[in-house]
């Protein structure tokens, strides 16, 4: 027989129904049953009271828990918001720091005035390119460019115009070389261009073009138009030669160009 939580209650109801169905009732029997019925009813009512109290208490607790959860959720939302703001601050701080680092990196590697590579970085590039040639056996040329009579510009127009002339010169040269070429300031008015994968014949063409560009595009300054010319020396890397030696030969070629009247290209 299947068990039910309300077996007793059901039994009393069945008894009552049987009694009512009877044709004739003994008043004694009815009185006896009523006593049992009232007893059961009283218990039922007490149990109901108890259950309602229990349910109410549980519901109350549920409501409290719900309210606490809502408050907690609110707090969490606020915390999440704060964290997000913190994160954003952090991200923008990181971005700012990256920008500063990038600036520092550029400052460490570039010439402050002309923004082309400084001597230190240029020599590093040269070492790298020389090493690369050992692997690839490709041609490598180096140009040394020296602005002619630069001291005269400084003396005649002042250092501000001298600086302008240097910047103008680097702009012109930059526009005449390839992306893979490395352009750097070696000091004063002396510059270098590394030409990877370039033969001496090709380098000669490039140098002549640069010389001509510099000559044609004079500096337009507040002090008037100033003609600028450049003397260029070229050297091609020899087998087993060091970067230092290569510079020395290109430099020597550049001095030859100076001696031969300036505004010209000489090849070592």
């Amino acid at each position, binding site marked *: 027989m*299947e*068990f039910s*939580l309300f077996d007793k209650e059901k039994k009393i109801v069945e008894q009552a129904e049987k009694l009512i169905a009877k044709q004739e009732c003994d008043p004694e029997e009815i009185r006896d049953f009523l006593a049992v019925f009232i007893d059961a009813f009283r*218990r039922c009512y*007490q*149990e109901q009271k*108890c*259950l309602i*109290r*229990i349910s109410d208490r549980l519901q109350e607790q549920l409501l409290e828990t719900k309210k606490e959860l809502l408050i907690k959720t609110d707090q969490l939302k606020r915390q999440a918001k704060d964290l997000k703001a913190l994160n954003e601050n952090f991200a923008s701080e990181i971005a700012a720091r990256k920008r500063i680092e990038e600036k520092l990196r550029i400052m460490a590697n570039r010439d402050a005035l002309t923004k082309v590579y400084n001597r230190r970085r240029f020599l590093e590039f040269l070492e790298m390119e020389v090493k690369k040639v050992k692997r690839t056996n490709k041609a490598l040329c180096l140009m040394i460019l020296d602005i002619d009579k630069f001291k005269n510009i400084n003396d005649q127009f002042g250092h501000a115009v001298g600086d302008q002339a240097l910047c103008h010169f680097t702009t012109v040269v930059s526009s005449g070389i390839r992306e893979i070429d490395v352009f750097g300031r070696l000091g004063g008015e002396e510059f270098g261009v590394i030409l990877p994968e370039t033969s001496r014949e090709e380098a000669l063409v490039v140098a002549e073009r640069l010389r001509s560009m510099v000559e044609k595009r004079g500096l337009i300054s507040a002090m008037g138009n100033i003609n600028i010319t450049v003397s260029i020396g070229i050297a091609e890397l020899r087998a087993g030669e060091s970067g230092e030696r290569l510079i020395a030969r290109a430099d020597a070629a550049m001095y030859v160009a100076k001696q031969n009247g300036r505004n010209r290209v000489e090849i070592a």
Partner: protein
Amino acid sequence: MENIVIQPSERTPEVNFDFVSGRLSIRGEAYPENVSTFFGPVLAALHTYLQTKPDHDVIMDIEMEYFNSSSAKALMNIFQLMDEAVEAGVQAVVRWHYNKDDDIMQEFGEDFSEDLRFLSFEMVEID
């Protein structure tokens, strides 16, 4: 009579009815999927046991952490059986254990005890 030993599950309490010694206990949480299936056999066995009018003391320890409404009705049926047994001459006591911080379980125990006429219902605070 065979003892009843039911291991606790997520929704049902541990039940340990040792009918030889008269030590009966229900501990844990009670919100079974089907209250009749879980408490039916327990109630039936208790009923049979109490009908034998055991001549030793019957001690029932109840320690609930949570129970739902139908489990509350099942507990009331158990207490009713015990109450009737005491009326019929059996020596029995129910000990309602509740955690000292658990006001709700304390109140529920007090509510249950109000309905009993013969059975002694002891409140036992646990630290």
